[in-house]
């Protein structure tokens, strides 16, 4: 028996691998080589064009970011987590996550291990001039394992290669299954594939079964492990010694070639563009145009996976599926101007597709940028603004800004007043007689320049007032005050946070009563500003908080959002109804929200909808604390 150390020897006495085809070339590699060359050229040119299109300062920022230790760590984390393992999908839909990571990570490992094998056993072949482009891919075809000289190291690689092939095949099997019964993998709707998508999809499906076929035919010559050798024995049993492996390798190569050739025009481009997008995103570069520069990487990073289809609140109606982010991005790629605008205008800007996107594509931001290309140049005249002058606060340091909408839901104003009085908060009511709009609605409509004018005017008034805390009850206002106003030295808080603090510090006494409360996360507050905890903490003190069937970042828009420019009242009512059903999952007595628009929308929906439960109360957050 051979001693163990002999097996482990790095340099075996006799070569482990012998060139079966000394030239290292066979005609069947042509389709693959053409396909991959085309794809690599395409992406190379694309990368250069893209980097040339972004502003000089951004470009500099990008190169620098590649060498900053902090971004390097984040890049590595995101590349592994998002591109290969698809952690974000795993977290929400485990089976779907398994499918994606099986194909992505499995294939990645096959390629890496294939190259390592070549590097170990026939290192010369890695040279591009000696077939480095295709040799590692078709390694098994070109070599012959020297019988009796296989080492443990070799068997280990054989095993790994077979293992990952099986892993990928299981992913492919799930993917095929998903085409017919997507709901099993947790998806109600899936994307409608385009022609290029179909070509790429079917070749992708074929690649790995063909690889198994091809490698199994040659397994008795070039080696293999449990899978390929096993199948090889089966072929021998079936066909005896007559094995036609050349056609299989041809088919395998053709499928690969087809796949790579179709890739730039299909959803599968995301496999590579995603990497670029993650690097650009982590460098902190913002898109300035819906299609050019960084946005191009972003739209090509979309994998068309369709997770945004189920996320989109508009899709309670099938007819609205076509307005989903995935199609928006598809038409951006195709430069279909008319459709792009129609889709951009329809969106409610609830940001859920962004929150659930496995690659973090910020489609709402792209839609806003698209709206800006049309609406930003529309004339406006705010010359009246400077005429509004600021009042000076004497005693009070807390300023309450209700916002436009809240003046149509007086119960919020009244409840805030009662709560503040009960807690002994001295405050001034900034827009008692009406104010200037916060600018967020203009921003959402793409009128960014006009928005900056109202922001400027409002900012002047607030800074001059001399307040130290600005409390907002409208999440739409809160979002823009927090993100765009840059009020130095002034604490900007949403009233859910402010009231929660009042409770925590003992200034506001809350009596807990036996009331089942469900909390609705307003889009701009939850996903928009990340405020999920405070409202729940405070409400938990006042009653029994029950769950909605979707909440936190999966919460569904009430349907009243200002984000959409074109969605009509009927469609909005349908969204409100489905959103209500989600909130009523655990039979609460009260729906509490913290946004004037949600409040009004839900109040109207409860009385107008055809849902059986009409006795549920809709309350504003502050109302709960002044019973």
């Amino acid at each position, binding site marked *: 028996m051979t001693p163990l150390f002999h097996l482990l020897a790095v340099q075996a006495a006799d070569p482990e691998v012998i060139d079966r085809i000394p030239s290292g070339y066979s005609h069947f590699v042509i389709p693959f080589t053409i396909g991959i060359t085309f794809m690599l050229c395409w992406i190379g040119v694309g990368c250069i064009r893209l980097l040339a299109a972004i502003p000089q300062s951004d470009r500099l920022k990008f190169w620098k970011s590649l060498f900053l230790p902090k971004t390097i760590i984040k890049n590595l984390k995101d590349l592994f987590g998002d591109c290969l393992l698809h952690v974000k999908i795993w977290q929400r839909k485990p089976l779907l996550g398994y499918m994606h990571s099986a194909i992505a990570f499995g294939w990645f490992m096959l390629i890496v291990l294939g190259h390592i094998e070549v590097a170990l056993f026939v290192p010369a072949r890695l040279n591009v001039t000696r077939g480095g482009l295709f040799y590692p891919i078709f390694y098994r075809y070109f070599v012959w394992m020297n019988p009796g000289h296989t080492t443990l190291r070799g068997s280990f690689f054989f095993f790994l290669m077979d293992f990952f092939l099986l892993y990928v095949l299981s992913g492919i099997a799930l993917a095929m299954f998903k085409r017919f019964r997507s709901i099993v993998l947790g998806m109600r709707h899936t994307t409608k594939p385009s022609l290029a998508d179909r070509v790429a999809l079917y070749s992708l499906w074929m690649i790995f079964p063909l690889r198994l076929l091809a490698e199994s035919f040659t397994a008795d010559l070039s080696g293999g492990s449990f899978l390929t050798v096993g199948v090889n024995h089966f072929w021998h049993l079936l066909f005896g010694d007559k094995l036609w492996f050349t056609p299989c390798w041809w088919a395998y190569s053709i499928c690969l070639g087809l796949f790579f050739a179709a890739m730039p025009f299909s959803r599968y481009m995301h496999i590579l563009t995603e990497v670029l997008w993650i690097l650009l995103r982590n460098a902190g570069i913002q898109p300035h145009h819906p299609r050019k520069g960084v946005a191009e990487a972003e739209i090509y990073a979309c994998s068309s996976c369709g997770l945004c289809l189920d996320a989109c609140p508009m899709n309670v109606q099938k007819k609205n599926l076509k307005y989903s982010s995935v199609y928006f991005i598809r038409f951006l790629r195709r430069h279909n101007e008319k459709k792009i605008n129609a889709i951009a205008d329809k969106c409610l800007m609830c940001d859920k597709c962004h929150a659930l996107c496995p690659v973090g594509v910020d489609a709402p931001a792209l839609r806003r940028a698209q709206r800006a290309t049309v609406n930003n140049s529309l004339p406006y005249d705010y010359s*009246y603004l400077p005429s509004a002058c600021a009042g000076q606060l004497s005693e009070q340091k807390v300023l309450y800004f209700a916002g436009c*909408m809240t003046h149509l839901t007086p119960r919020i104003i009244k409840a805030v007043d009662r709560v503040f009085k009960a807690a002994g908060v001295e405050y001034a009511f900034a827009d008692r007689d009406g104010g200037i709009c916060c600018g967020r609605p203009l921003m959402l*409509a793409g009128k960014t320049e*006009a928005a900056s004018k109202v922001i400027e005017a409002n900012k002047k008034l607030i800074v001059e007032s001399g307040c130290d805390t600005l409390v907002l009850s409208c999440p739409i206002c809160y979002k823009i005050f927090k993100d765009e106003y840059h009020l130095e030295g002034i604490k900007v808080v949403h009233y859910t946070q402010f009231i929660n603090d009042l409770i925590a510090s003992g200034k506001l006494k809350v009596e807990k009563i036996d009331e089942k409360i469900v909390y609705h996360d307003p889009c701009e507050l939850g996903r928009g500003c990340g405020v999920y905890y405070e409202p729940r903490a405070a409400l938990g003190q006042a009653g029994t908080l029950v769950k909605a069937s979707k909440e936190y970042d999966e919460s569904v828009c009430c349907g009243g959002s200002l984000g959409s420019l074109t969605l009509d009242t009927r469609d909005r009512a349908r969204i409100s109804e489905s959103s209500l059903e989600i909130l009523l999952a655990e039979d609460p007595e009260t729906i509490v929200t913290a946004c004037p628009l949600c409040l009004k929308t839900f109040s109207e929906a409860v009385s107008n909808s055809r849902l059986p439960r009409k006795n549920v109360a809709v309350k504003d957050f502050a109302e709960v604390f002044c019973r």
Partner: protein
Amino acid sequence: MVDFGFGLVPSSRINLDLFDKDKYEELAAVEPDVRICMACGSCTAVCTAGKFSTTSLREAIEDIKNAQPAKAVEMLQACQLCGKCSMVCPRGINTRHLILSITKTYSTK
């Protein structure tokens, strides 16, 4: 015919003969809600910009139907798109989109 010169003075009367139907249909195709206003004035009453400046969506719609689109576009320039009007409109008109569409359709710039 003798022209007495009265015709030379520009008339301040609304002249419906000047109404540009094609343009109006173009607007109505983009935002059909322009047809359903019943002129209740709720939009003007709540208007955030209306506090500072003369602006009225009701009047703008009227102006367009009265062949005076330039007045409408001019008036709507003060709009801050805050959306209060859409919340009070008894006909459920998509006011923000209507305002943008009027400006887009009739703006000469």
